[in-house]
């Protein structure tokens, strides 16, 4: 193919008087009121987690602010110092509302960072598998299939049984649990993408392989990966909470929402239900908000994907 036959430079979106794709997507996203509600809720939750030290009425880690006399008070009680505990206090006299806001930080942090690392690792392997093919592809996909045939909770449980508690260990376990999902999705998309003409064009221009892989192929595989990443953050948060509830997750010094629920578990049978109940509600709202946004993203980015 001679250079002369290359198509002329296409006009940019603005020149054609069209909206850029990103803005079209945004408009489509905002057409669903439920998804917008989810997004607003999610933004509020993220802000709450980020600004925890400025918003929370109390720093639950600061022992000077705690009073053991205030332990296990029902919601709405007054503290000895005149502060109102809107959601009650736990067994160490910590304000539950503050505990939840700080717990959100841990839960969201663990969920987002594990999804991010898993996406980086899994998507790279998936792309490599699709691009290189042959034995490399077979080997990678075998491991993916093997891992996906075991339930996520079981794999995470095994890893944490070996590594022990700790935030980093939980993140590592979640990354190991989740990477396979990204790898499979990335490979699937990349296999269809690499047959397209722009890939052929890039290859015939003798661009270096790594550049083709990361500059040409990767961006075009992103939409489905973004959808998966959103849903996986919710799954990671939920799984982390479950593991922490079982006593295998984060350490007691950095309580996530799941650990807060676990702490209240022993007092539940004596009727002190608020210690477990409200952290669970916070967990539920977070997961539902993320799922609502993720559902809408899937509709917008992949219009054929749903019934």
């Amino acid at each position, binding site marked *: 193919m001679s250079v002369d036959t290359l198509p002329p430079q296409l006009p940019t979106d603005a020149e054609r008087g069209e909206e850029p794709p990103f803005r079209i997507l945004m408009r489509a996203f905002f057409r669903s009121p439920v998804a917008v509600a989810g997004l607003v809720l999610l933004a509020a939750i993220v802000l709450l987690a980020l600004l925890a030290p400025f918003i929370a009425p109390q720093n639950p880690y600061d022992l000077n602010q705690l009073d053991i006399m205030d332990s296990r008070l029902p919601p709405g009680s007054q503290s000895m110092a005149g502060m109102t505990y809107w959601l009650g206090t736990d067994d160490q006299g910590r304000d539950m509302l503050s505990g939840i806001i700080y717990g959100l930080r841990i839960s969201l942090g663990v969920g987002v960072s594990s999804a991010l690392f898993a996406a980086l690792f899994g998507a790279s392997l998936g792309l490599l598998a699709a691009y290189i093919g042959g034995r490399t592809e077979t080997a990678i996909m075998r491991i993916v299939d093997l891992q996906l045939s075991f339930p996520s909770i*079981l794999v995470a*449980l095994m890893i944490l*049984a070996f590594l022990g508690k700790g935030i980093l260990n939980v993140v590592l376990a979640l990354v190991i649990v989740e990477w396979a999902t990204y790898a499979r999705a990335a490979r699937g998309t990349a296999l269809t993408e690499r047959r397209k003409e722009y890939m052929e064009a890039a290859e015939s221009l003798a661009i270096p392989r790594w550049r083709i892989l990361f500059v040409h192929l990767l961006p075009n595989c992103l939409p489905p990966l973004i959808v998966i990443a959103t849903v996986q953050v919710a799954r990671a948060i939920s799984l982390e909470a479950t593991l922490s509830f*079982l*006593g295998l997750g984060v350490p007691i010094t950095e309580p996530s929402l*799941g650990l807060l*629920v676990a702490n209240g578990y022993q007092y539940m049978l004596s009727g002190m239900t608020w210690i477990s109940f409200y952290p669970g509600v916070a*967990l*539920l709202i977070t997961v539902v908000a993320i799922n609502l946004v993720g559902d809408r993203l899937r509709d917008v980015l992949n219009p054929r994907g749903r019934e």
Partner: protein
Amino acid sequence: MTAAIVRRLFQAAMVMFAMTVIVFIAVNVIGDPVDILISPDADQIERARVVQALGLDLPLWQQYLRFLQAALHGDLGQSYVYNEPALGVILQRLPATLELAVSAILIAIVVGVPLGLYAGLRPDGIVSRIIMTVSILGFSLPTFWVGLVLIMLFGVQLGWLPSGGRGQTAELFGVQWAFLTKDGLAHLILPSFNLALFDACLILRLTRAGVAEVLPLDYIKFARAKGLKETRVIGIHVSKNIMIPVVTIVGLEFGSIVAFSVVTESVFSWPGMGKLIIDSINVLDRPIITAYLMAIVAFFVIINLVVDLTYTALDPRVRLQGEGS
């Protein structure tokens, strides 16, 4: 066909072997069991005696060979805590987990299929919309928290049902079962509903999608044109054709129900395998952890093998592919 089966069996054996290596090495990295087993007051001689008795002084690879040789004889070590063979301790807990898992699957089918049928037949009705919204919630709710809410509501506030334990058991085929006694059944209700929730929602959505797909097809129109009663059209013509994916999912989900029973058993203090493994991890009872992991991996390898072989037998495309390569 035979070659495919042999190759599949070989793969399954390789997975099992790889798992013994991973599990053994990994389990030996967690903490030092000597500290737990021997009281801090014990002298050096006593410590050395116990370490030698458990073989903890040998190099890791020798410990592994000993472990592998014993494992092939069905001996996965002596539990540090129960002082009984680890595999035996786990198998004792198996009936409790099985009865929980089976009742959960049954509940998921009994709840999921009719609701899914209803939602599929009246996709625009208000009730259908409520059913679908609730099913999304069922996916989002973490199992352990639903369990806590169930205990809070039915156990503590209303006091209708017991909130933990397995209750009375009765013997059948030499095994103790809870579902044979009234007390045991009462104890079974909350945990099995808790465990069933996720799969009930899954089956519900599958059934609904199946109905939506089948209803516009010609043979349904024909059945109606013949003047068949609506109950017969739905009960026979629709149901038969939507059951295939549902049955597949029920088979595949059985494994993950057993895995997720870890959570439910911990919430409801149900004395099954799941609660045992969590307790054992907390006290670093290594032989139990190893034996549980080996047993569960074997369980999953067998489930996957059966599913694969069934597909090979049923689906000509898979069969031909297997022979071609």
